[in-house]
């Protein structure tokens, strides 16, 4: 979804979700290539097609909303970033490096008793890595929520249980 980058717009949109009783799974906001216009990506759990349609209509009604697309059933690139701080003694560091390697995650901070790991990818991938790291003792997790795009080519449609509204 693209919106005018004006004071209060995020409040307006999240307020709308609250008012209409829709639950937001995740939300990301950032600038677009056009000055004054921001992109918001929502992941929303909906019960049926009608609710999804109603959310889109209500969003479209907002004066600051420029364009809304439901990309749930489209081929998309969806990414989330997570930072995970794990308790790790120096002896175990190598084990962690091996563990995160297939995830293409990286270590972005090291101290004597902890590591901060950065992972990007779809939610499921982030989830999987966090589960693998859990036994080592997770001190903190910070996640961004999903941001997404439709793919340049729409040959295959991806199937998701949750609705992405971008």
């Amino acid at each position, binding site marked *: 979804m693209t919106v005018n980058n004006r*004071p209060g717009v995020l409040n307006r949109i999240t307020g709308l979700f609250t008012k209409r009783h829709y639950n937001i799974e995740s939300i990301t906001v950032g600038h677009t290539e056009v000055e004054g216009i921001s992109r918001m990506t929502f992941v929303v759990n909906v019960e049926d097609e009608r609710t999804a349609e109603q959310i889109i209509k209500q969003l479209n009604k907002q004066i600051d909303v420029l364009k809304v697309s439901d990309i749930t059933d489209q081929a998309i690139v969806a990414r989330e970033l997570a930072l995970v701080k794990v308790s790790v003694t120096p002896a175990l560091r190598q084990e962690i490096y091996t563990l995160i390697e297939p995830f293409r995650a990286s270590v972005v901070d090291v101290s004597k008793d902890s590591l901060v790991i950065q992972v990007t990818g779809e939610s499921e991938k982030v989830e999987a890595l966090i589960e693998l790291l859990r036994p080592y003792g997770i001190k903190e997790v910070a996640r961004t929520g999903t941001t997404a795009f439709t793919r340049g080519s729409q040959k295959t449609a991806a199937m998701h249980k949750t609705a992405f509204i971008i």
Partner: protein
Amino acid sequence: MSRMKVEEKTFEKTKMSGALMLIEALKSENVEVIFGYPGGAVLPLYDKLYQSGVFHVLTRHEQGAIHAAEGYARISGKPGVVIATSGPGATNIVTGLTDAMMDSLPLVVFTGQVATSVIGSDAFQEADVLGITMPITKYNYQVRDISELPKIIKEAFHIATTGRPGPVLIDIPKNITTAEGEFDYEQEVHLPGYQPTTQPNHLQIRRLVEAVSQSKKPVILAGAGVLHANASNELRQYAEQQNIPVVHTLLGLGGFPADHPLFLGMAGMHGTYTANMALYECDLLINIGARFDDRVTGNLKYFAPKATVAHIDIDPAEIGKNVPTKIPIVSDAKAALQELIHQQGKPADTTAWLDQLNEWKRRFPLYYEDDAQTIKPQKLIEMIYELTNGDAIITTDVGQHQMWAAQYYKFNKPHRWVTSGGLGTMGFGLPAAIGAQLADRNATVVSIVGDGGFQMTFQELAVIQELRLPIKVVIINNQALGMVRQWQELFYEKRYSHSLIPNQPDFVKLAEAYNMPGFRAKTEAEAMEVLKKAFAIDGPVLLDFHVKADENVYPMVAPGKGLHEMVGVKACEELSQ
């Protein structure tokens, strides 16, 4: 001539204060009247208003100001303009904003705000008005820089009055009203995210024409969208051309003449038997400018179960929101109806259907048992109807008196009915009458209110008196919060928890305090007498009618029931005569 033009041009570019800009902008918008209440944060604004020549009505409470503006908007079709100060002034208009939002009334509301330098510091009379009013306005602004002010006011009027109308609020910090800037009001409004669709899609129109031609039992449900679009004539033409009967929502009343043979009455919780059964039995339901409110549909499970639904609405979000819709037409009601008339589709064969409906109309009319020893509120409304030739502007609050007015005052003309529909606001009717009268100075305005709601905003009698507005204030006094009492009787085993008010004050004496004639009546004969007296007086009158206290509104669709499950319906042969 050319020299004068040059001079005008230079004047336009002159620097002026924010307060003066606001007044100049209101003049450019041809605003006839402002309803407002001064206070600290709007002092610079009121100072400029002082000798501006702009007509300002000082209500006695900000809620009165905004309801008056709603009444003005409803009757004139133009935006109602309100000024309130920051903090409590602004929070006092919250009910009216919500009311206008629910009932799609165009308002432009200005609120004062503390200076930008102290916003966020919990300053004196500071409130987060932008945050508070975000969900209850069509749009709202806080002016952050003087240079934005003309553009914002221009956009506000545009947004309030186009598409689906609604309230727009502009929060103006005090220092913005004193800051100087260039006033350029001639710029185009440019809102890429706001482009209402007003012309119907031709494919969908053709689908509707086709559906009508094949239907046997079509019905039109006409809402206030018809009135907002000034499409009463088109609605009538279309219904007559296609032989389709019409039912109204509460807010739609007057859009189609009540004495027309194709009119079936109001639908919904207290709708007529025929209107509700028509919605239940129809095979094609054409909704024009109504939003399928729950008070209209009853339990959705049983709503129009056999019908193909077509919905014409300017707001796409209303289509399919409550009722699955086969033929969606996003459009202004007038444009869609004109197109439908123009198509001259094959009319539905509704002979058998109309026979059936007429039979229902004859057998199951609205009824009440007359009792001359008391005043039956239904009878009272009928008397008002007769004495005003069905021509008056009627304003109401919410509740029993509202339903009786809707049932028994037969609106044959559009823009005569001012009521709080969606929000159901007590205290709406009296201040709304002020706005309605100012919008139509020659109209007879009758404000029908209950004894409960009247006491929520009766301070506005001062305005009625001051401006000598010839409003007739009719209090349907049953010494109770009648609709609450009715529900307690029907659904809470007559436990009348805090709904009976046997010691109401002497409203006739109150009229005296406000220097206007006041009359009381307790029987039907007295009622007729004081009504005649009141309508003969060219000025405000307050009338206190002690009506039969335990009278209920029927028919009624109980909550959770379908429209076909009305109670309080009797066949005419069963009625005691």
